[in-house]
């Protein structure tokens, strides 16, 4: 890899790439601007992270609840996500879909997402609507009064979402299998989208209980980024949120730990709408807050970011074994997954894809990556962070995720430094530590026509 870079530098010079062409000289490392946020906690436990930026007349509001799919009640897989949909229905002071009236109808937008560890609601609005939205977010935190017809209708929507993501999409079910087969006891084994039977089992009583249990001010991190006046924002937050009482009950937390794996496990599944065989290999990795997390992120980038990445170069470009490859350091609040995937090229065997993935892992374990390759990965991570942080909502996402998943908002500002501090030896060390044969789960997801034929 180093060689081709040197080669290009020489060609570049011969092409007349002169210093005079440079728009601005890029000396040394490029900086990602610090997010000069403020953090405060209300007496009821609600945490507010705010970042004033008056350059555009818009503001992003994100409300992070520390409750996710891992908190789905027993026998109610998919419930946290279904509940997230219901948060757009009636409250004490709002009719169903009122949030859309306050956002989309005035030129803004809203959405929400449910992940394993959290549920996040956000609005991006013209900044003159900030107070209105703070009121609305406080209102649905304080109360939810969805009725049965609305509950059932929205549950039907979620079932259609399941069908669209899982049934109609050729590799939708593979995503579910990765969760189900990778964890043995941790609730991460239940995919967030749930399943039709358990969605059908949910009742409106479950909805009330869930709101009472998890939707409380001391379980909230609110992030506001954009066009506001700091004193005014603080006053509004006090006015609308401070009056919500903190319940006496303790917040239930998932305490179950996924045990280390002791031997390889393998699964094969078939489906009619699968055109090309696919392989997924997963490894358990430590939580997002662990000291090894940055090295794992760098490893992910080296393996899978762009056409110069190792997996693309080896499996797609050179060996032409795979149509698509990917690596994902899926870091979570608790034990996470490092997932390697290959969708085979037409006529290629999944067994060969699996071995090719292992060859790339072995290379990372046996040889240290070159300084050029390491610096390429850091540059890719920096640019992608700059891209994310171009908007108020992107900045809020960076702050919220640092605060909630890693437990400290300041990690949003130290993340790049931590990535830059990763050495080639660190990458090699984490590759050796986590990518062992006994720490892997292997899933083959194959066309129905291959049933009974694989291995031939």
């Amino acid at each position, binding site marked *: 890899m180093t060689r081709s870079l040197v080669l*290009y530098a020489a060609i570049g010079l011969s092409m007349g790439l002169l210093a005079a062409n440079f728009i601005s000289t890029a000396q040394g490392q490029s900086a990602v601007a610090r997010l000069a946020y403020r953090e405060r906690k209300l007496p009821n436990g609600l945490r507010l992270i705010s970042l004033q930026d008056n350059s555009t007349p818009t503001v992003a509001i994100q409300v992070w609840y520390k409750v996710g799919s891992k908190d789905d009640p027993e026998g109610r897989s998919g419930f946290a996500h279904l509940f997230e949909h219901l948060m757009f229905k009636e409250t004490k002071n709002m009719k169903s879909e009122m949030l859309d009236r306050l956002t989309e109808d005035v030129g803004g937008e809203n959405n929400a*997402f449910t992940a394993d560890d959290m549920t996040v609601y956000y609005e991006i609005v013209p900044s003159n609507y900030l107070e209105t939205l703070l009121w609305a977010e406080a209102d649905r935190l304080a109360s939810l009064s969805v009725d049965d017809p609305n509950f059932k209708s929205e549950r039907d929507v979620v*079932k*259609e979402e399941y069908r669209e993501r899982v049934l109609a999409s050729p590799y939708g079910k593979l995503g579910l299998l990765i969760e189900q087969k990778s964890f043995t006891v941790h609730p991460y084994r239940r995919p967030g989208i749930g399943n039709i039977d358990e969605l059908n089992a949910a009742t409106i009583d479950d909805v009330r209980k869930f709101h009472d249990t998890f939707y409380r001010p001391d379980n909230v991190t609110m992030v506001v980024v954009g066009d506001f006046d700091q004193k005014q924002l603080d006053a509004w937050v006090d006015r609308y949120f401070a009056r919500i009482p903190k319940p006496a009950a303790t917040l239930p937390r998932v305490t179950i730990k996924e045990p280390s794996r002791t031997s390889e496990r393998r699964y094969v599944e078939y489906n009619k709408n699968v055109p090309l065989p696919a392989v997924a290999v997963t490894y358990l990795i430590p939580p997002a807050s662990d000291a090894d997390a940055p090295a794992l992120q760098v490893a992910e980038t080296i393996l899978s970011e*762009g*056409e110069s990445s190792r997996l693309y170069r080896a499996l797609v*470009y050179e060996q032409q074994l795979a149509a698509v490859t990917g690596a994902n350091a899926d870091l979570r609040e608790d034990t996470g997954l490092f997932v390697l995937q290959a969708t085979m090229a037409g006529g290629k065997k999944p067994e060969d894809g699996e071995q090719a993935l292992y060859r790339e892992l072995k290379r990372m374990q046996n040889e240290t990556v070159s300084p050029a390759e390491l610096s390429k990965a850091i540059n890719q991570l920096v640019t992608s962070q700059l891209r994310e942080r171009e908007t*108020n909502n992107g900045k809020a996402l960076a702050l919220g995720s640092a605060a909630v998943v890693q437990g400290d908002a300041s990690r949003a500002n130290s993340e790049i430094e931590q990535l830059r501090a990763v050495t080639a030896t660190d990458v090699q060390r984490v590759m050796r530590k986590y990518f062992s044969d006994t720490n892997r789960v292997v899933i083959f997801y194959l066309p129905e026509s291959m049933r009974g034929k694989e291995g031939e």
Partner: protein
Amino acid sequence: MKIYDSIFRHSIYKFLCAFAALSVLLTPMISQSQQETPPAPSQPRPARFPSPVERTLPNGLRVVVIEKKDTPLAVAQLLIKNGGEVDPPALAGVAQMTASLVTQGTATLSAPQIAETIEALGGKLESGATWDASIVNVDVEASKLNQAMTILADVVRRPSFKDEEIERLRQQTLDGLSVALEQPGTLARLVAARVIFGDTPYGHALTGTPQSVARIKRDDIVRMHTNIYRPDNAVLVVGGGVRAEDVFRLTQNLFGDWKKPNETLSSTPVASMTNSASAVRSARVVVVDKPDAGQAAVVVARKGLRRSDKDFFRGIVANSVLGLGYSARLNQEVRIKRGLSYGAFSSLDARRDVGPFTASTQTKNESGAEVAALIVGELERLATSPVVEAELAPRKSALTGNFGRNLETTEGLVNFVARLALQGLSFDEINRYVGNVQAITGEDVRKFAGARLDAKAANVIVVGNASVFLSDLRKRFSNVEVIPASELDLNSANLRRASPNAAVK
């Protein structure tokens, strides 16, 4: 944290940040005892958009720069003013293959060297064809733009089109198609294009079909490149944390000696398809029976309009009432009121020539017919009953809000400006857009829908497990054609593969 691991309330549209030129007053809530009403908004602050500046090089290359001083990023997009519409009829996908191949090797650099160089800068280089355009785009830190643009110029001007790379891309395209054609939604949109446009240029699949991709030869690709990749058929748009003068100087160095061929640029081939869409026979109801489909994809489609149409703003406002965003009529009726789908939307894709109007959704197979009838019913309602101000104003806000959010990122700004340049429109449109939208009335919408979106001329396409919705569909629509997925032929307007017997004859 990776957002793609999460599941969202609704599918994410292409815009991700906000806009605020509007002040729409909230409808007061009906006040009941102890109920609160939301605090009213304060005065809005106006949004300002950066203004593009431009120069044209002597070889005809138009260079447009948008300075956006607050960003450390830059995007450079080279736009060729032709794309999939100039594919020869038997060679669907050749413009797409040509665009994809330019980044896969030049006279001096191999594909891996190009990727290494761009990615070492932390940048991304992407290329592809769309309708009316082929695009090569680089996205990088502003301080590294000149190295990135050096590569951009090289790949656009001197692609090598090595046989080895052509074969590699051919296999990747075939594999990609095998996956895409398993998706009921993708299949329904491809069928819709054939139904609306028949055998005219917008009718085929942009990435081709397994049959056409297999036929494409190196000569076809080289010819496509020679014909359309020329400075007088290109626009370079650069935006972000850059200075216009620096970009103009850099462009002169990198593209100044790009020779314009002696042959005049033939008037764009697409001009010959004027009104081709209207030549297609009357509305069809096409079912593609795919028994293993996990859902039915429903598309209601007909010809829409040209970007240059005087009714363009009436059209996009009408579409915003019908199917833009979460709260428009289609999503209200299909998702919010009935729980029949994760989302139902429509789009009016205005192209150089008449583009498609498409309303689409996915639903459980059992409700395929019901949803098709609902969508057609909404199209009829739009043409027959007036749209009241209380509904119209919020939909216009949703439209202008999207517009504003798109312009907040460097990438969005460059895309919008490049699109204007492609269509030959004035950059003043950036500042006129909101006013143009606001000027449209409810009566304009109704008239437009009656004249231009008449439901009687709308085609209905349902791809799914026909055994559970076909009899219901036949009760609601006449002339239902059923094509088993195994016999579907996207290479012709007929859509049906000749039977084996016919082939022997």
